[in-house]
């Protein structure tokens, strides 16, 4: 079955498997260095890490399998791990499976080891975290463990690179002699044997690619949800369930009995190999938890940590965002002067370069948020935050793990949606993604400024102290939050049924984060965002540019010529310049009004008139699909103020005032516009991110439809009720 190294024409397939948080990725990084590739498993968003390594002249291809507790396919991670180990993916079946095991938590880790060995893959144990085990006073007799298990056991401290050489050696041995990688199969009690026989009979009736040989392989099919089994082989799940039904008393279920028997075997093995020198009831982490999870002090600390994280994303990233914007602005100015004035230049600058810049501006916030999340996750505190807020979040129908993503969505939905990766349940995660854009992000602020400065600034303070504008903006935040709760409630019962997964969250021991891991995961995140989300953003930006540009009908040629001649006839250079600038501005205004977007704005006028918007705002609604804040320069252009790249408060206020004096903005219309922007899905980058994170166009389209319908209804209600009540 296995070739000698000389005869091997392809690299040695080595898979790293193990429970979450055992150091698989750390080991993977230590082995592969920079020669790694992060991608996705097809169809799902579980990350796939593949890299290369060389030892003793043999090239390896190393896969970092997703962390899982068992192979029963209760989660996408488990399904992938099992499929990879049995060759049901496009990847070759691993020649050697390195099961990474936490030495300080052996019993639970060894369940997976037994399961992998049962399905027949050659295994060896990387007994990682030996330092932590030593610190906790756990003595492991490695030779004895090796004897008891029958496979090789390599003690390691992956975080310090200790044991890598021995691991290289052990992998080579198992590759040369796969029999070294076997563990004697568990002796199954009668009910399990009977169930396996029945299931084997059913499996035999279905045309399976690789019918399982061992009892362990059959047990996996049995433990698989009928639903999941059916996906792969239609009808199989139901047939298995009929042949081996679940008994009323769960303790008699052969699937569960098999787990209990495995644990009994593990306990027996460990009782002969592991000594606890110090028998304390509380480890190091428990002593830290006494402080960090203290009812009063812990809550304060939590609020501080979350406020810090939010501040870092919201404000801390701003200088870098400014630098990116300035640099990209300078680059497009440069391109504008260097390239000949033609359509190609325009599409390069206003389409492609704008899209690239629209991608890069998100990087600082993404990096900031994931820096925070990496530190929280690696230190072990992230799981504690979910524990602390779980009850609070349950009230709004979401799990505790949705807290950090939703909090960051107040800064920006893009990193927030990426942060939902830390959520294990697919439906919970989808639900969080769908409501995250309702959190009032910072891109809405320029729009709020535009409206409040124009129509609310001069109103009398409410109760003599609260500025009306401030109150309205606060109300927008509240509106988004309340609608998020309501949407979660409705979606959970309609489009995203089910979910509400049990908590069952491991709280890993506190550890110091390692910079190498953090930097590496930030690098991966940035790379995936730029290459995968960025391309979609650029493509969508180019499309939007075309809508706003074609068919390029500006001022009437005759009028333009006359006005130009008049301008040149003016006395003095400055006067001439002003007049010429005015012509250019008017030309741009007319071009935009005649563009496809302008025509769409006119066409949709009847549908937005009941919201208090005229066709000019309609153009803005089309254009601000790129990003909400783009409404401001588009309105500037439409209302003859000219557009400006740097959207500051002054400019936003000026544009708002132009709109007000043109009659397009009144307090009621302004409120309606704010409500619309608080709810509507108008952000290409968010859509591109949803597409990337859900791996389909279905969910971004759904988000646009549901959020924009909701926005329309809310603005409709505001404007119609307001008008009836006599407001203007």
């Amino acid at each position, binding site marked *: 079955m296995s070739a000698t190294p000389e005869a091997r024409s392809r690299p040695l397939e080595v898979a790293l498997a193990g429970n979450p948080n055992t150091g698989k990725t750390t080991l993977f990084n230590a082995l592969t260095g920079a020669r790694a590739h992060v991608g996705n498993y097809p169809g799902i968003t579980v990350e796939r890490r593949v890299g290369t390594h060389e030892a003793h002249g043999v090239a390896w291809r190393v896969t970092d399998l997703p962390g899982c*507790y068992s192979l029963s396919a*209760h989660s996408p991670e488990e399904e992938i791990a099992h499929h990879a180990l049995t060759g049901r993916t496009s990847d070759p079946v691993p020649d050697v499976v390195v099961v990474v095991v936490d030495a300080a938590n052996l019993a639970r880790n060894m369940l997976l080891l037994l399961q992998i060995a049962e399905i027949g893959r050659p295994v060896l144990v990387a007994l990682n975290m030996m330092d932590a085990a030593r610190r906790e006073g756990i003595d492991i007799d490695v030779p004895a463990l090796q004897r008891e298990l029958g496979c090789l056991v390599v003690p390691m401290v992956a975080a310090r690179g200790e044991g890598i050489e021995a691991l290289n050696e052990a992998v080579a041995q198992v590759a040369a002699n796969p029999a070294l990688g076997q563990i004697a199969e568990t002796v199954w009690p009668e009910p399990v044997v009977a169930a396996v026989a029945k299931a084997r009979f059913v499996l035999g009736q279905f045309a399976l690619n690789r019918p399982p040989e061992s009892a362990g392989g059959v047990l996996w099919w049995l433990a698989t949800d009928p639903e999941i089994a059916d996906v792969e082989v239609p009808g199989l799940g139901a047939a298995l369930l009929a042949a081996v039904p679940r008994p009323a008393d*769960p303790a008699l*279920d052969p*699937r569960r009995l098999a*787990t209990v028997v495995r*644990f009994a075997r593990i306990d027996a093995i460990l009782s002969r190999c592991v000594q606890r020198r110090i028998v304390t009831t509380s480890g190091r982490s428990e002593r830290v*938890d006494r402080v960090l*999870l203290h009812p009063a002090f812990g809550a304060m600390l939590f609020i501080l940590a979350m406020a810090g994280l939010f501040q870092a994303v919201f404000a801390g990233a701003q200088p870098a965002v400014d630098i990116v914007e300035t640099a990209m602005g300078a680059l497009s100015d440069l391109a504008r002067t260097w390239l000949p004035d033609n359509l190609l230049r325009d599409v390069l600058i206003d389409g492609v370069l704008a899209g690239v810049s629209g991608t890069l501006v998100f990087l600082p916030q993404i990096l900031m948020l994931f820096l925070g999340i990496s530190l929280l996750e690696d230190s072990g505190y992230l799981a504690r935050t979910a524990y602390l807020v779980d009850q609070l979040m349950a009230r709004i129908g979401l799990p505790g793990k949705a807290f950090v993503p939703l909090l960051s969505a107040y800064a920006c939905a893009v990193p927030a949606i990426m942060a939902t990766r830390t959520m294990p349940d697919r439906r919970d995660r989808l639900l969080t993604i769908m409501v995250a854009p309702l959190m009032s992000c910072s891109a809405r602020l320029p729009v709020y400024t535009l409206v409040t400065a124009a129509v609310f600034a001069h109103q009398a303070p409410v109760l003599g102290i609260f500025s009306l504008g401030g109150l309205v903006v606060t109300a927008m935040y509240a509106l988004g939050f309340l609608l998020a709760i309501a949407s979660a409630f409705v979606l959970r019962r309609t489009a995203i049924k089910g979910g509400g997964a049990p908590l*069952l969250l491991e709280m890993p021991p506190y550890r110091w984060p390692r910079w190498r891991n953090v930097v590496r995961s930030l690098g991966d995140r940035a790379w995936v965002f730029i290459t995968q989300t960025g391309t979609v953003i650029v493509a969508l930006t180019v499309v939007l540019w075309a809508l706003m540009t074609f068919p390029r009908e500006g001022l009437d040629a005759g009028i333009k010529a006359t006005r130009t001649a008049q301008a040149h006839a003016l006395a003095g250079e400055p006067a001439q310049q002003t007049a010429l600038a005015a012509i250019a501005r008017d030309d741009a205004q007319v071009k935009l009004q005649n563009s496809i977007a302008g025509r769409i704005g006119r066409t949709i006028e009847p549908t937005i008139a009941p919201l208090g918007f005229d066709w000019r705002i309609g153009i803005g609604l089309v254009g601000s699909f790129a990003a909400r804040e783009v409404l401001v320069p588009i309105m500037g252009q439409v209302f003859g103020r000219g557009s400006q790249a740097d959207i500051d408060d002054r400019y936003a206020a000026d544009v708002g005032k132009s709109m007000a004096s043109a009659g397009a903005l009144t307090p009621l219309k302004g409120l309606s516009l704010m409500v619309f922007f608080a709810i509507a899905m108008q952000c290409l980058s968010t859509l591109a991110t949803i597409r990337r994170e859900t791996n389909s166009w279905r969910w971004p389209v759904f988000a646009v439809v549901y959020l924009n319908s909701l926005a329309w209804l809310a603005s409709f209600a505001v404007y119609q009720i307001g008008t009836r009540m006599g407001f203007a």
Partner: protein
Amino acid sequence: MASHTLDSIPAGEPFQVTRVALAGVLGDRLVELGFTPGAPVQLLRRAPFGGPLQVQVRDFVLSLRRADARAIHTAQAIPANQAA
């Protein structure tokens, strides 16, 4: 010996699992995490306002909701020196 469900035992005292009275995937998952008969468990603390529990089972710490913990039956562990 009286049986107590995991959500109702006093914090900080050694108990052991007697059975997981929950059918289906969640029950399977609990067993796979190590809640097998005889496994040592300890309730570490309860989150405020009816929030989840923090529990140690075998060698690791886990949080789970109270309603789910109600399915895990436990008994007071017999101290090692009295077991013999």
